[in-house]
């Protein structure tokens, strides 16, 4: 498993974490290249279904990050997102879908260093956990069935 390189998708808000990740770059801090960022206007925009879509398309880990509470550009998007993630996480835990593969964080536009840490910590953790076999199997099982049916 040592040569396993996880695929990690980051869903981030434009105003804090995306800008924070920009700062990581301007500060030339290095982090694992496994993480790729998708920009949203706000964490409030991030549909929980997108997390499932990411797993279904082969992500081994996910980072969701936005403005710290009270710092939201739109004042309350991150508070709504927080409630959504609380519910989502509880449901996933109840269904045995591994939420250790998802990092939720608040990274501000000034926290370039924190972004690098969040990424590196997540990649290290996912690397240890290995590929997300059980979700991939769900999808693969499906494809096999389809092939069989055809």
């Amino acid at each position, binding site marked *: 498993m040592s040569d396993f*390189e996880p*695929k990690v*998708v980051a869903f981030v808000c*434009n105003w804090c974490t*995306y*800008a924070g*990740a*920009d*700062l*990581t*770059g*301007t500060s*030339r*801090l*290095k*982090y694992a*290249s496994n993480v*790729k*960022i*998708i*920009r*949203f*206007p*706000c964490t*409030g*925009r*991030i*549909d*929980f279904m*997108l997390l499932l*879509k*990411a797993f279904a*398309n*082969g*992500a081994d880990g996910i980072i969701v990050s936005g403005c710290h509470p009270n710092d939201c*550009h*739109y*004042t*309350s*998007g991150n508070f*709504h*997102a927080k409630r*959504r993630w609380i519910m989502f996480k509880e449901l996933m835990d109840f269904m045995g879908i591994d939420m250790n593969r998802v990092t939720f964080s608040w990274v501000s536009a000034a926290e370039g260093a924190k972004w*690098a840490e969040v990424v590196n910590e997540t990649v290290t953790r996912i690397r240890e956990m290995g590929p997300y076999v059980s979700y991939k199997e769900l999808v693969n099982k499906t494809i096999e069935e389809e092939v069989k049916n055809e």
Partner: protein
Amino acid sequence: MARIGVFVCHCGENISATVDCGKVAETIGKLKHVVLSTEYKYMCSDPGQTLIKEAIKEHNLTGVVVSACSPRMHEPTFRKACAEGGLNPYLCEMANLREHCSWVHEKNELTTEKAIDIVRTQVEKVKLNSALQPIKVPVTKTAMVIGGGIAGIQAALDIANTGHKVVMIERSPSIGGHMSQLSETFPTLDCSQCILTPRMVEVAQHPNITLYTYAEVESVEGFIGNFTVKVRKKAKSLDEKLCTGCGLCTTKCPQKKIPNEFEQGMGMRPAIYIPFPQAVPNRPVIDREHCTYYIKGKCKICEIVCPTKAIRFDQPDEIIELQIGAIVAATGFDIKHADFFPEYGYGRYKDIIDGLQFERLASASGPTSGVIKRPSDGQIPKNIVFIACAGSRDPAKGIAYCSKICCMYTAKHAMLYKHKVHEGKAHVFYMDIRSGGKNYDEFVRRAIEEDHVNYIRGRVSTIYERNGKLIVKGVDTLLSSMPVEIEADMVVLATAGVANSGAEELAQKLHISYDSHKFFAEAHPKLKPVETNTAGIFLAGACQNPKDIPDSVSQASGSAVKVAALFSQNELTREPLVAVVNRMGPPLHSTCVGCFLCQAVCPYQAIEREDIKTRDGKVLKSLAKINEGLCQGCGTCVALCRSKSIDLHGYSNNQVYAEVVALLNEY
């Protein structure tokens, strides 16, 4: 069929030093619908931008991906270049190869692969972009200022002086606010009335300002540039055009025992009254709650004595509707009164007064003509105690914040007292002295050093009466918490500044947010201190939090500039990255079911209700509708909507979905 052009920037060597730009361009060039994939040293340079403009024409591009630095840096640059090249600017996306790739990773194959993934994701996104047009919103160039205190006055005058119309609404019979009640002002000790009244008169006489006193906001509808405000003009019970303000009625009114609000209850006024001699407008109103005629059905003495026959007992309240482009809320604050404090006798002791009452005692136009006389027996107090932080910074009393103005006015009060009663002794109990501000600390030092005010750092635990004296018990924390007991003749509490009565109700009418203390909330605590979350509504003065006069005036001028900037255009142009509720033909009209849970989630009150009606007016269906003038494009409603009936331009469900798929799958 989509025709996408991809431009990979080297950014000098900032990108190309770690990313193999040639390989990125080549790999992306093989993607479906990519008709041009090229690289260049500096895309943001003039030749770089020209490259894009020419390519748009030459290759008939329907979308452009500039793979360079952060879109937060150059998105406007490249969108503008595309527009100049003849492509809708919203058909241009940026792939962030610098901040999110070349600068944060080592030079290796994985880094180049990541760069390819990033570009491919944007290519897939841009295919789903739609050509958007900027949103134009017309602007009604009339401002409304709610509140006629110093903040409202300043805002109104500043806006009016830029040449725009202003309507000022004041709920009491005169403008002037708390500042008109003050005796002198810190840190200069100049007379408050002397600097304020010329401004009040200017408001009344300004050709661009329409003043409605004794009036309140009834309802507010609409959005930035286009508010419809209903104002209730309470009946003054007189014809203002006929009234000359001679004041004869006020002297003849037989009901003279009504506590005078302006004097903070320390004087009396008749039922028909002008709140204070310099009132603007200088016309009386009848206080119907206390007027003998309205209570008992007879009297009408004012009507009999009025030389111009201006009294109108049957005058009704009038509702007027105004078209307004921007609103400045300047409704001010109030203070807690002595009855809030059990430890100080719940207001039982007449000689424990609050700061505003002291202002009236010290004012030359006040009930004692500026002589400091205590309320109980009119004696001049020989020993006076001022207590700072009465209520403020006391979470146990529910007021955790600092009221900000009390340290300064307490120093001022102590000085005024010493200037008027030379042989008297003034003591101040304080927690900390907060005197930040130009010439503020010097002012406090003067009170201590030149006027010999006795400052005691400690809190007062209790006050009770003994032999006609108020016994003030406290501690001096700078002397090892030694108990202090002072026999005072009068005590002045610097009580906490609190939100004005009716603040919550007004905030709800305006659809602006407010904090747990009912102070109005700014859009951003640092960078948008005069804006509210509702576009087109601004804040001035102490309705936001307790403020002194200079701060209130500065903020008022700030909000006036915001209004003037808004009014400098005939139309408001907004980024079209807003949410939209889908619409379709009958019978569905939309997949929206009208649960309106999105309304609660929207921080901008941008979601309205739209009724689909038959020709005869029967409501077939109610739908959510996004007001483009208000929506800021956060997309929280989009993620909440269960039936996926709302989508967000620029970050549509289709686009973000395509990004996830493209980022994780190789093609």
